[in-house]
């Protein structure tokens, strides 16, 4: 078994090193693009060793002072770190497909017993940075206890450390296997991916939406008093009961069991420490038992499946924009299909609507005013403006990677009798249609929910979005040509993201392109104090942007032409 584990470890090490060393770049620009992509992992790798040493040091410090009567803040920090590591064990396999560790079909072809396969599969979790850091921290704590002369406590802490690491490994293995089981059915996987992409960014706003409506100071005081009275009577509300149950369940998390074992052992309560340690060992065992079950399920039927997906084709050759060639429209339609038929693409349309919905609820609950700290949203026009900005930014992952997302489809495009301008404009039209659809919906819904504001300013907003997009579109096309990144648009995390540099520069580009529109609006409303003039001035600015984009698209087409070989060969 050891030989097999060593072979797996060597294979993973070589895969990592080869991905950093042998990029297969064709020229300097591609080498630069790939180097920027690898900066993150290289920095993370470089920081891993000092971080581990630092954490081991902190662990030793915490362990040394833990037998004393005072509260050790560093130990509390390590407790949080272990909790975060547990979170990463769940999210890691989901968000970082590059860390995918199970190609079960390939593994099944090897003459390895399934038991050993599970061990090899689980052992790969030791390569996760959060597990490595957890190992350093818990080892440090045991060393600290030993230095403080608490030998039994050190031994118990060491056992607890081994158990929590095994629990983290079990959790990672279980989550990775479950994820594969879910994603094995492509349709189910796509649905889950879409839900996840949409839900995660919204979670941050949930407390504000679900929380109580804004109250006066008197109302808050009365509520506090009522709560205290209920507590005095020994009653508790449904919320309080929920919190109490959640806190009790939280106490059974492996990270909490580790903290309890170590703390009790350090304070000489060895019997209770052993009980906590047994609980921790049991939780690690349960996680591995479920891990083995799910991994066995995966091995029994490792192939992916999906009902063949049919799609409506009636609209594909219909609809024209005056002055736009059929070839350009075909490119735009292909791009729209790609967007509307992948989870990441659908999220581009749906996430701005979700953000709009959240802000709309906040505004309705707070009598039309939402104070975000740095800015206050006080009417429908403000809501529409925020939503329009979200709509523009939502298309960024596609807009700044508009060629690479086609994958082999781009070869079909490059083999077709298409002018380079037709291709670029086609892509820009598709992205523009998406921005327009979501912006128009959000603006109309904002106006219906919270009418008010000068009608001219509503028109001004739509023109401002159009001007910003027209000005930025050629730039994002050029960024897509220089920084392409092959992506899997069914993926949830990093796998579907555009190139980091393209994303950042694209964001700055959109921000810069919106500045003149903001200034035009401020001049009309602030300086001239004539809101009615805003759409007229903005129309003029839109005209300038439209004409400029014609010239800028020529420049972007030149950039594309220089990079077409690299784009055509990138997969």
């Amino acid at each position: 078994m050891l030989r097999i584990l060593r072979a797996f470890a060597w294979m993973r090490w070589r895969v990592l090193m080869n991905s950093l060393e042998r990029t297969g770049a064709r020229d300097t620009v591609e080498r630069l693009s790939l180097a920027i992509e690898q900066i993150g992992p290289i920095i993370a790798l470089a920081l891993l060793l000092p971080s581990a040493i630092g954490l081991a040091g902190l662990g030793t410090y915490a362990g040394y002072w833990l037998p004393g009567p005072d509260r050790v803040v560093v130990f509390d920090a390590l407790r949080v770190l272990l909790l975060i590591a547990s979170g990463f064990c769940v999210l890691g396999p989901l968000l970082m497909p590059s860390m995918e560790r199970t190609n079960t079909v390939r593994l099944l072809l090897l003459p390895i017993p399934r038991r050993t396969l599970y061990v090899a599969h689980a052992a790969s979790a030791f390569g996760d940075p959060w597990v490595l850091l957890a190992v350093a921290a818990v080892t440090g704590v045991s060393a600290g206890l030993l230095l403080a002369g608490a030998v039994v406590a050190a031994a118990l802490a060491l056992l607890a450390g081994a158990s929590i690491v095994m629990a983290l490994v079990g959790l990672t293995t279980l989550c990775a296997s479950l994820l594969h089981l879910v994603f094995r059915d492509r349709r189910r996987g796509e649905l889950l991916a879409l839900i996840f992409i949409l839900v995660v960014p919204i979670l941050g706003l949930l407390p504000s939406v679900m929380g109580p409506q804004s109250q006066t100071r008197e109302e808050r005081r009365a509520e506090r008093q009522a709560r205290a009275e209920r507590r005095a009577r020994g009653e508790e509300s449904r919320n309080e009961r929920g919190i109490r149950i959640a806190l009790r369940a939280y106490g059974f998390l492996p990270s909490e069991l580790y903290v309890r074992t170590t703390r009790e052992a350090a304070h000489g309560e060895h019997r209770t420490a052993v009980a906590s340690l047994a609980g921790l060992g049991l939780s690690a065992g349960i996680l591995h038992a479920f891990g083995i079950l799910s991994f066995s399920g995966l091995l029994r039927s490792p192939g992916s499946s999906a009902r063949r997906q049919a799609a409506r084709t009636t609209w594909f050759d219909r609809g024209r924009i005056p002055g736009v060639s059929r070839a350009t429209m075909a490119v735009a339609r292909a791009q729209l299909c790609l967007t509307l038929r992948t989870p990441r693409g659908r999220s581009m349309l749906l996430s701005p609507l979700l953000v709009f919905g959240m802000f709309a609820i906040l505004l309705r609950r707070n009598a039309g005013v939402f104070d975000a700290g740095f800015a206050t949203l006080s009417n429908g026009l403000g809501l529409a403006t925020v939503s329009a900005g979200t709509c523009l930014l939502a298309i960024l992952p596609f807009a700044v990677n508009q060629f690479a997302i086609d994958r082999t489809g781009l070869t079909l495009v490059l083999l077709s009798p298409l002018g380079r301008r037709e291709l670029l404009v086609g892509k820009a039209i598709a992205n523009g249609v998406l921005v327009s659809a979501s912006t128009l919906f959000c603006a109309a819904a904002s106006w219906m929910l919270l009418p008010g504001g000068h009608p001219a300013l509503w028109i001004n907003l739509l023109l401002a979005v159009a001007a910003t997009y027209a000005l930025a579109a050629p730039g994002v096309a050029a960024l897509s040509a220089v920084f392409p990144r092959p992506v899997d648009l069914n993926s949830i995390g990093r796998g579907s993201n555009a190139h980091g540099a393209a994303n950042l520069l694209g964001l700055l580009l959109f921000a810069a392109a919106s500045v003149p529109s903001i200034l035009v609006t401020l001049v009309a409303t602030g300086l001239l104090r004539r809101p009615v003039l805003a759409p007229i001035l903005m129309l003029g600015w839109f005209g300038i942007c439209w004409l400029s984009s014609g010239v800028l698209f020529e420049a972007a087409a030149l950039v594309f032409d220089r990079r077409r070989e690299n784009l055509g060969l990138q997969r």
Partner: protein
Amino acid sequence: MDGIDLAVPTGSFFGFLGPNGAGKSTTIKCLTGLLRPSSGTMRILGLDPLADAVAVKRRIGVVPEDLALFDRLTALETLTFVAEVHGLDRTIARDRATDLLQLMDLESAGSTLVTDFSHGMRKKLSLAAALLPAPRLLFLDEPFEGIDAVASRQIKDLLQSFVARGGTIFLTSHILEIVERLSTHIGVIAGGRLVAQGPIEELRAGASGASSLEELFITLVGGDTRAPVALDWI
């Protein structure tokens, strides 16, 4: 690639052969405009593919090695896309698409996304997309790989009738029997260099009467000089 001096007669069925990694696909990529050669000149149907790229692409059809398909389009949408970028009349395009899907046995999969296709189905669709605009020259990179026997037979017949009507085919394949049966001319590339080209019979006669294309090919690429490796441990 180095020193490729290739001439493909119009109306010929040209088999382009070579060992793995010899440069067959790279040659096709250069000829179809996916790669720009560092030096040299090319003429395709009398046009310069670098200077008149769009004009050349209007006249050629390509089945590249990676099949060049949009994953998220259906078979019918893929063909519609090709028809639209070639500016074909919509009624004609629809009729041709129906014929091609029928020929490739993809009628029932017309509204299925390409991502759900098997490798063989993708290959057939890629071939259908290449044929749809009725090109005068076809570049086919391993077109029979992964295709079932029935479809393979139909495609071979179709390609032969395409050549009989004056079309030209530039085909790479490792299945030498197919090349031998279909091709009128062959070119052989090894290590990035063209080692032979011309009508099959002439080349066979030149290679002291090789009895089959396989024998001729092995002689040309120097396969017969390689010392045999005996894997006694098998």
